[in-house]
């Protein structure tokens, strides 16, 4: 899960990394002169207002504003809260003191598939870091991080602390860009940042924070952050409902991954690999998916029933595609029975074409059942088994749905 800057900085502070003095403001708050709601960040060199959005291109989109008076703070806050940055409405702003510095660096820890372990990346910082010079160093995860020989002495401490953030909080990425060495005049000596903040590197600041948490380690991370949607919009009702299906029930998965999309063909796809193969095919044939979802690991009938009800309750659907490869161990009869049970509860009754392609254990029984249900209850089923290429049913779906 990608964290907001202010959340990443909480983890940084916990491990003793210096960040600028700051104040966090949400859209419904208003700054005025009363002590509880006044601006507390000192104005000596002005302050910077930073929209808290997940998109990386805040500066280019006008999400970062520097101001030098109290009055300008209020005006600029209003401006920011009215903004939408890369589809995400600005609802939180971080007000930070301005730190004067001479040079900026890039520093991060992440996992690398070529070394199959953690790496530290270090180089010149600032925007467009991809094009600038940065070098990666493999880290021996069994020994822990050791600074490379040519590494700047004044940054050794912050690098060790960032490694601590990376491992303690189970991150996929812990990135500081820019990392700066502040000028003497902006030393924070008179302000206490946090109890744990070390004074030894008081001049080194993380001006920004990009942290991606490893969701698979949620079970052991002490700090919890609220769920978010990477599309930069709040999750839809269907997305919230779909994700509840797997809660407290570890028998297979259905709905944990569910995204609403803009199209009109409902998709219930099987398998983390096969689902993507099929979505590729659907797009290639001009299909417009109404959603993306996958189920796998032999989920019970009830899960498929719930998922089907969510997927098919969208208005304006022109077709439904239930698709998967030849399963290893998922009980096809059970999953398709769950699909039928969900389908029966959709009002008004779906009259659009429903294309089903599946293979695996008990698939023959499942197809017998489908044929019967289709005939008796009047559903427009088009049933294909393992002998029909999976991706070719994408074309069948598109042709039927759009009347080609």
């Amino acid at each position: 899960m990608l964290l907001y800057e202010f959340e990443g900085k909480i983890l940084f502070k916990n491990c003793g990394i210096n960040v600028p003095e700051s104040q966090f403001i949400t859209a419904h708050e208003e700054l005025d002169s009363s002590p509880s709601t006044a601006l507390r960040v000192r104005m000596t060199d002005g302050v910077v207002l930073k929209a808290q959005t997940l998109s990386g291109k805040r500066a280019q989109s006008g999400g970062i504003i520097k101001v030098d008076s109290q009055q300008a703070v209020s005006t600029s806050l209003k401006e920011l809260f009215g903004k939408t940055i890369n589809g995400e409405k600005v609802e939180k702003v971080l007000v930070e003191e301005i730190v004067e510095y001479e040079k900026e660096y890039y520093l991060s820890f992440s996992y690398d598939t070529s070394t199959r372990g953690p790496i530290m990346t270090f180089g010149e910082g600032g925007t467009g870091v991809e094009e600038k010079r940065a070098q990666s160093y493999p880290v021996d995860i069994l020994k822990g991080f050791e600074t490379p020989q040519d590494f700047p002495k004044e940054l050794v401490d912050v690098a060790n602390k960032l490694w601590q953030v990376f491992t303690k909080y189970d991150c996929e990425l812990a990135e500081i860009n820019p990392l700066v060495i502040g000028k003497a005049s902006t030393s924070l000596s008179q302000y206490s940042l946090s109890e744990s903040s070390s004074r030894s590197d008081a001049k080194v600041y993380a001006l920004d924070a990009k942290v991606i948490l490893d969701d698979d380690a949620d079970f052991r991370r002490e700090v919890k952050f609220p769920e978010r949607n990477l599309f930069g919009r709040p999750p839809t009702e269907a997305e919230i409902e779909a994700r509840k299906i797997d809660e407290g029930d570890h028998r297979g998965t259905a709905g944990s991954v569910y995204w609403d999309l803009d199209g009109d063909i409902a998709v219930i796809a099987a398998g983390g690999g096969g689902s993507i193969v099929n979505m590729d095919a659907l797009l290639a044939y001009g299909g417009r998916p109404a959603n993306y979802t996958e189920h796998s690991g032999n989920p019970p009938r009830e899960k498929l029933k719930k998922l089907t009800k969510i997927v098919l309750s969208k208005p304006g659907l022109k077709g439904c595609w239930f698709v998967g490869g030849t399963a290893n161990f998922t009980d096809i009869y059970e999953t398709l029975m769950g699909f039928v049970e969900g389908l029966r509860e959709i009002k008004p009754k779906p009259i659009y074409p429903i294309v089903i392609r599946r293979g695996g254990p008990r698939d023959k029984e499942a197809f017998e059942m489908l044929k019967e249900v289709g005939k008796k209850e009047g559903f427009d089923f088009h049933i294909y088994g393992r002998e029909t290429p999976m991706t070719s049913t994408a074309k069948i779906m598109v042709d039927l749905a759009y009347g080609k």
Partner: protein
Amino acid sequence: MAILITQQTKVLVQGITGKEGSKVALQMKNYGTRVLAGVTPGKGGQEVHGVPVYNTIAEALENHPGINTSFVAVPNFAAFGAIEEAIKAKIPLINVLTEHIPIQDTAKAIALAKQTVRIVGPSSIGIISPGIGKVGSIGGDDPRGVFSKGSVGVISKSGGMASEVSWILTKNGIGQSTVVGIGGDILVGSTFADLMEEFEKDPQTEAVVLFGEIGGTYEEEAAELIKSGGFTKPVVAFISGLFAETLPQGTKLGHAGAIIYGEKGSYKSKIKAFEEAGVKIAKTPDEIPGLLNNQVSK
């Protein structure tokens, strides 16, 4: 001869008293794989499908010194401990079914295993050498209909697609030497290139099919191996994930490893690498047999 799973394979099941462990133990036995023992701490002395259960790997090895393969089916929070135990016991092949293992734990396991034992997984559907045996849930209860013995090696990030691709081959009269699900995580114990080196040495294997996905660098490394002459047999590859590239970067779907930031790991980068290495690219899985034709004996 096949790779990884041979006539000599003797399996230990870690987590044999759990739902997945016991189910897969039975499947493996039914397919003719020798399952000698199981391990679940605290449950030593029990039996699961006639397989004796021990508290530790050390005890299991004492009673069954022939064990050379471990199948790991324990919950994610216990996975690192289980894999570490198998590595320290020097079991040469460890197949990890467990999904959602924290990446930090996987990285540690891979570092520990380095050059001493082979890990296949995590999130691996398993390994099957048709007609010889299988480890893991690949092929389910009855792999016979889908997999057939032959000359093509299959390596797949996706478990479902490992079976689908094998079925497409079987349907077209092309059998498989060994089919390996390497898992779709960001970090995996065995990559395409690692296993291609095994297939290169295997006389039964005449060609290899790779099922890749966007994200990471394993496909690019496979292309490098071919270009450097480390793999000389014909290769057909399929790459999935174009759809994912239409969504905002960093969106999670499908496999954990199928995630791209910037240009690295993109569909284009992988296709380009494979084309430069002379690998034939299948646009749909059903094109694979046609691209293999005349290069393998049926």
